[in-house]
């Protein structure tokens, strides 16, 4: 008997690019057998702006604000990575006070990024309330950014060699007050979610990625730590003085979506811990290293990476000795982590795809650059 299309159990379903759970414009093509996923393919590039090409046509300093537009919910981390990379080429180091301020702002930004992730991830899975709660705390962080540098989202807070602005009056108290309220507020989220039966059921054993798979796919950040690998660049290869702070690397062992949730929640608490210590370390001093007005790094190349909220964010910078970068390559954690979605989704149900995409914590601005 001839085969007809009715004999086939496979169905190809297109999800996105306009889909609320893809957090931007990501298209995922799903191959299904009933509700079971046989395979996925991601189509990315809808937000491609050619950041790396722009870099080659700007001066080293002019390019700095552009990096904020990649991962726009963690723009401070992007800026820190770029500044560190160029400082490496120039062989200068930011003064101690600048480093402490950098740590404070970067960790606050990590909290803000995780808050946004938590709110939207919960929203994807049908829990609306956490979104309003996390926005409340995030607002406090964005207000601090706004008071410090005038911008809330794409902050351009750091400069090559240090900082442009001195802290405003009352910064320390405001940051400390925020750290004090964050703990109880995170308790509130946990009350809503951590032991919530629906939350646990939607996330446990969903999107499992074990340590070996993580390494094979180059997956870093909370996904790797949820799979039991105690690896964080802030500890492994400290930068900006992270070796002076006392904090833990939260890890879990199952590598499923629930563990990633737990790891990120714990990371927020640890970040607040770092911020508190950093505020106490603030000492008067210069905030800018001796950097020439016209930045011309000597011929050479360097790769510098930091622990961004999403994973290892790296910059491979090449200088030909001129005022413009010869090449700036961004190693985007979202892009590389997204590649693992196929391994995580195979065998899962179609309703889990939202959970799996959400649990990676991608920002399409960074995936596509």
């Amino acid at each position: 008997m001839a085969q007809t299309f009715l004999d086939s159990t496979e169905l190809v379903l297109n999800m996105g690019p306009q889909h609320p759970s893809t957090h931007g414009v990501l298209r995922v093509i799903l191959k299904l057998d009933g509700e079971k996923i046989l395979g996925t393919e991601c189509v990315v590039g809808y937000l491609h702006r050619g950041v790396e090409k722009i870099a080659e046509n700007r001066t080293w300093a002019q390019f700095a604000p552009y990096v904020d537009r990649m991962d726009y919910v963690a723009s401070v981390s992007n800026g820190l990575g770029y500044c560190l990379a160029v400082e490496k080429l120039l062989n200068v180091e930011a003064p101690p006070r600048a480093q402490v301020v950098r740590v404070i702002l970067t960790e606050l930004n990590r909290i803000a990024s995780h808050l946004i992730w938590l709110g939207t991830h919960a929203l994807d899975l049908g829990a609306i309330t956490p979104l309003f709660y996390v926005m409340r705390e995030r607002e406090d962080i964005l207000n601090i950014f706004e008071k410090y540098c005038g911008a809330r989202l794409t902050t351009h807070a750091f400069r090559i060699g240090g900082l442009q602005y001195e802290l405003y009056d009352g910064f320390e108290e405001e940051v400390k007050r925020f750290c004090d309220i964050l703990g109880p507020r995170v308790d509130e989220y946990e009350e809503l979610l951590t032991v919530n039966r629906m939350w646990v059921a939607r996330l446990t054993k969903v999107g499992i990625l074990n340590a070996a798979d993580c390494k094979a796919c180059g997956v870093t950040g909370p996904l790797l730590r949820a799979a039991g690998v105690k690896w964080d660049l802030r500890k492994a290869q400290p930068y900006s003085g992270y070796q002076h702070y006392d904090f833990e690397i939260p890890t879990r062992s199952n590598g499923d979506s629930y563990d990633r949730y737990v790891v990120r929640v714990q990371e927020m608490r640890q970040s607040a811990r770092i911020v508190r210590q950093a505020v106490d370390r603030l000492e008067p001093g210069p905030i800018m290293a001796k950097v020439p007005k016209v930045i011309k790094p000597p011929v050479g190349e360097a790769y510098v990476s930091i622990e961004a909220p999403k994973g290892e964010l790296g910059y491979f910078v090449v200088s030909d000795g001129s005022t413009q970068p010869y090449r700036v390559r961004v190693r985007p954690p979202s892009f590389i982590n997204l590649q693992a979605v196929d391994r995580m989704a195979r065998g899962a149900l179609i309703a889990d795809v939202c959970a799996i995409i959400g649990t990676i914590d991608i920002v399409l601005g960074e995936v596509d650059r």
Partner: protein
Amino acid sequence: MADQQKAEAKPKPAAAPPAAPKAPASMAATPWEGELTRRLAEQFPDDITEFSTYLGQSFLISRPGAAVPIIEFLKLEADFDYLVDVTAVDYPNRPERFDLVYILYSFARNERIRIKTRIPEGFKPESAVGVHPTANWLEREVYDMFGIEFANHPDLKRILMPDDWQGHPLRKDYGILQMDNRWVKENLGIESGQ
């Protein structure tokens, strides 16, 4: 763009000293020696042309065909189990036009190294997907941006640019305002995106 190419074309300052002291035209790297380089030199005697360190970061330069075997050796024998990044740099005035750069990290050693190869236009380097699955999207991006085709890649197609786009944007001879006018006209229905 123009002065970048000029800087690239400039020969190394051989005899005529310029008025102002200029930065050297090549990277002031120092040799990299250690247990790992000895093993690599033993394993790949003819394939590795240089072991260097610059700003405390170690890299080696290999012949084009040897990059993937070296990466595999490092993964299996030296614990370099994490391929951080694959990227390229375009030097249009050089006979081997592209630098292909692999960045490797070892969790066990907490060490990061780079493998660099110089490849001419049209050369098809072997894909590293068989060794590190991460390389899949990374090599697709290199292909998309530079037009370097990887041999035996499972799914080599553009990733960030549209599938039928003409040209490879991160090549140095691709202007910042340049675009595929045919694509823009057909798909966006406008004369120009500028």
